[in-house]
């Protein structure tokens, strides 16, 4: 059972890693003027909710399967995701707003955030991998 949980987490984590990489690539495209703000933001906004769900599911799964440490590790990031999503002003077109992304260094902070998440997901990936192997051995 535990192995199944971690296999799922592992897959989910892979998806999240890819998503982070996608975010980084798209944002750096914008930085280099390869795409314009409008299309960049519409691309990214599409993936904000999948990312949010993907991460929340893992977090909840860890809570349910009583892996406290991993749950607590995931909790801040999940909270941040949800907070960020909720706090979008009503007039904005999503977490990434094309009219503001070039202002006040928003682009940089988005970039930083995506980087941090990538690192975090990589860390989780290895943790899940280790836990999965451990669980498989124990089985």
């Amino acid at each position: 059972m535990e192995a199944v949980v971690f296999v799922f987490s592992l897959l989910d984590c892979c998806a999240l890693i890819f998503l982070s990489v996608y975010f980084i690539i798209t944002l750096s495209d914008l930085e280099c003027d390869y795409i314009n703000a409008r299309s960049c933001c519409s691309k990214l906004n599409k993936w904000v909710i999948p990312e949010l769900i993907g991460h929340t599911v893992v977090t909840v799964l860890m809570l349910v399967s009583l892996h406290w440490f991993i749950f607590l590790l995931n909790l801040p990031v999940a909270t941040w995701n949800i907070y960020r999503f909720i706090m979008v002003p009503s007039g904005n077109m999503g977490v990434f707003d094309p009219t503001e992304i070039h202002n006040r260094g928003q682009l940089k902070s988005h970039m930083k955030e995506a980087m941090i998440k990538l690192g975090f997901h990589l860390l989780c990936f290895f943790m899940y991998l280790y836990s999965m192997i451990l669980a498989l051995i124990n089985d």
Partner: protein
Amino acid sequence: MSAPAGSPHPAASARIPPKFAGAAASGAAAPSGPGPAPHHQNGPAHSQMQVPSGYGLHHPNYIGPSGHFPQGPGKMTSLPLESQRGDYYSGLYTVPTQNVVTPCTANQSGAQQMYGRGPPAPHVVGSTPGSFQGAASSASHLYTSASQPYSSFVNHYNSPAMYSVNSSVASQGFPSTCGHYAMSTISNAVYPSVSYPSLPAGDPYGQMFTSQNAPTVRPVKDNSFPGQNTVVSYPSPLPPPPSQQQQQQQQQQQQQQQQQQSLSGYNTLSWSAPGLPSTPDSLIRNHTGSLAPTNNNPTNTVADSLSCAVMQNVQPRKSSPVVSTVLSGASSTRMPSAAKHPTEPVAPVTQPSELIQQKGMQYGEYVNNQASSAPTPLSSTSDDEEEEEEDEEAGVDSSSTTSSASPMPNSYDALEGGSYPDVHSSSASSPAPDPAPEPDPAPAPAPAPAPAAPQPSKMAKPFGYGYPILQPGYQNAAAPLNSGVHPSSQGYSGFQQYPQYPGVNQLSSGLGGLSLQSSPQPESLRPINLTQERNVLPMTPVWPPVPNLNLELKKLNCSPDSFRCTLTNIPQTQALLNKAKLPLGLLLHPFRDLTQLPVITSNTIVRCRSCRTYINPFVSFIDQRRWKCNLCYRVNDVPEEFMYNPLTRSYGEPHKRPEVQNSTVEFIASSDYMLRPPQPAVYLFVLDVSHNAVEAGYLTILCQSLLENLDKLPGDSRTRIGFMTFDSTIHFYNLQEGLSQPQMLIVSDIDDVFLPTPDSLLVNLYESKELIKDLLNALPNMFTNTRETHSALGPALQAAFKLMSPTGGRVSVFQTQLPSLGAGLLQSREDPNQRSSTKVVQHLGPATDFYKKLALDCSGQQTAVDLFLLSSQYSDLASLACMSKYSAGCIYYYPSFHHTHNPSQAEKLQKDLKRYLTRKIGFEAVMRIRCTKGLSMHTFHGNFFVRSTDLLSLANINPDAGFAVQLSIEESLTDTSLVCFQTALLYTSSKGERRIRVHTLCLPVVSSLADVYAGVDVQAAICLLANMAVDRSVSSSLSDARDALVNAVVDSLSAYGSTVSNLQHSALIAPGSLKLFPLYVLALLKQKAFRTGTSTRLDDRVYAMCQIKSQPLVHLMKMIHPNLYRIDRLTDEGAIHVNDRVVPQPPLQKLSAEKLTREGAFLMDCGSVFYIWIGKGCDNNFIEDVLGYPNFASIPQKMTHLPELDTLSSERTRSFITWLKDGRPLSAVLHVVKDESPAKTEFFQHLIEDRTEAAFSYYEFLLHVQQQICK
């Protein structure tokens, strides 16, 4: 719905106008070139293009146009289908790949090939099922009510015959044209034939253009030019006739500049020189003729030049037209003289089609020697790779040049500083002997001090350290050529000659002395104890500080009206900037109405190959064939064409070209800068006709204004106009030529808006003028009995967008209430009880993203939406404003508008409309701001959409739009002594020309904190802070923004106190340049936008914020800090003369009630409104003479005009007010306020130095700041 844009339909090629073929074909040709075929194209604005999914993906409407621009097959064929149809920007900006790059691609066959290509046949578009669907469903869209009340109009859909009309228009085999999908495609299909019938006429490519302002003056130029060369010989024996004199002066001026320049940086007029008011200086820059007398009179020294400057101050208006004709004339000579030019300019593309082939050849030639048609930061990856390759090539090309000039940063410094030895050596080694004789044995002493001066202070260069630009040396090299062409022009050549004019030496040493010794502490650094200084406000209007550059650069520099920086001395490092705690940014007014603007028609627009900077006065010429970019320091080649100087009609003087002599120039862009043919001027009016609107009665005023100004609408023969009205349904007006009267078409399906007859709704203004006039006459009375109270603004805007998207243009929306139906409906969010809350002000941001999305869509289709909000109640301007903010429109707001109950608002609307309808307009514009390497821009303010990091997309640009940019210093600027900023605004004029307006500003870099403080432009800083505060209050909260404003004062003053001034800390000390800072910040805090505690309606507040964001500095400053004058005792003392009128100049008064006396009358100039406050005890003579009433009691409460009385004081007052009103965009409305009338609160709220219930007085504010500093 996918027009196969990538596969041009050969059969269709005959349909396109030749010119069009040029644009399209060049796009096609680039990829057809062999191998890497890097395209030199420069997108007019380097816009990015994102290939896989375009900006305009959502706009099926664009298919048609993209069909016209067959993107090169090589470029586009591999794309997914959807991208072919659409990315507007990629379509717009990548297509005109015109300058085919390598010689091999540019050969004749290639050219032929490209010109043979044509767009796909439009009927391809029609083969989609969408049109059928649309037809089937169209019946349901129709408003077939039998109770059609507007009997005067034929309901289009009631008459079946109309269908045939429609389909005949479409004529592309559509079974029906009613479905909106089919509609839009039809409109596109028809687009080329309908909208660009007169295209060749609008083709600017080879045409001769003169400056807009004074084409008629050319004869003058022609006469005077021959004389110019002879004039050069000093001293001129006879005073030449006035028209020549100007030129002569200019000429001499140039010489003098060179001489001064050769004296290195020593000769700077210090900004701090006490004898030199900043005023004249700024004027000198515009009117270069002023210093000439010093040349003729060698014994004149500094004093003389200063007095000259002052003299100039008095008569700029007279001299400027002449100067302008010189410049414009000069630029216009380009064409006539082109015959002599070695490189024949490209033939006009408007030639008949048989010439196309030949043209192609010319193109090829032209491209070959066009070294600088360089890569753009275009965006598709493939593009960029190509670009990089190109750059490498270029690097190889110029590697020899680069290596000969020493490595970059150091060499720049070296070039600037110790250039003289080099210069000598280069002149010595120049093959041809210098023809300029050196008769005098004394050239040595003059150059000697020059290198000496900068050396001791290598690290901290003295102020105004010069910028020789190497022209002297360059001229040495150039001299032989000059003489070859024009023997008489020897006088130009370099510094060897200046010993002939000892006056110059004296001048420079005198200036050097002035700047370095005689004023150890300049006025702008004089510490001022703010709490003790009672009269901080100067008596005269505040002038912008003049950047501390050497005289020559000062003259060349951009006018502060167009371009200002908050710090005229740029700190070297970000650390230094942080220490100073001052905002760094630019304030721009790029499209300002100018009386003097050199317009340059040139085949080659010379730009830096790597950063795409336009050549400007601040570049340095390394030798005759190379120039060094002043932003990225790359060495570029001077193209052959640039060697010819149309101004002097001589060859080999690139530094005398108008581009290099003026920091504000306008280029007529070639077809490289177009992605589609220049659009016609298209105006669409979207009018609210609900009950509320009819009640307010704005329609009468609007229609009246339109009727009056119909002929003055900017545009050419292609100008199109359309009207839509809406309440709960949307009404279109068919104005197609040939109808007997306008037809009203009603669409009631607001959930799925469609265009009933897309091609007859926007009609040619001249062809359908009678119908338009009929409609305008009928409109005000058509809806008088309406009982419809709802307003479907959102759907109406969607329809407007659909209507405009094929061409782009301007949509003017008139709205009188909260939109209540359909998409984009809004709820009332204002709680009237919270209006005077001191705590939280909510709802400053938009409630929905509908308007923002719509604006971005519009912006993508080059459509700007201007909003006129005339409402009596809350209308959620915060949400509605988004439609203009992001589409580069403008916002007008008339609270409690009523045509009879509120005559002053009605008058204001009338005046605003007059200006709005007749002012200049630029379409499909983009603006890019560049700055010297090391600086970077991070936040933009204004109405636009930031498309990529430094590219502002402006669907429309108008002369009243201002912008602000925040800057940061990313790399240390230690290896440069000057930084430059350049804005380039590329737009399509209303006449269908593609033009580029370029402004370049040059500022010195300083390394000490004191110098940074000395150069603060307090007005610019305040405007930038205001912009930042608006952002802050929307994104965070109003109280945050207010705190930030106060902190800006506290931080900067405490930083100054702790670092620069060494006086005691108990007092509040500010440098002279910042003495007005606290006052202005207090004024900001009492602005409608930021005030708390005083009852302010949410819409008023939001409107004030919108104005802060979009107004140019001059107008914004009046709004923030009005000017108060006492006008009951106007005298002629110090009066100035304008157009034969005497304009008295009363001193400025403090904005405080203490200045108001009961015996006086005061005029307050708030920018968009004037108040005349009449004191109770005001002299009856004044009331009678000026106001036309016998005494105070008989003055009416609402008085908005001054009668034209034949008395001296009336004349003075009126001429003063007229003078103030001149040259401002929002024509001001005058209110006469009696001391006891209720309207006086309006007046008194502007007295910002006084205490109110909710806010500090100025003195209290100072104490508060002091307290904060001491904490």
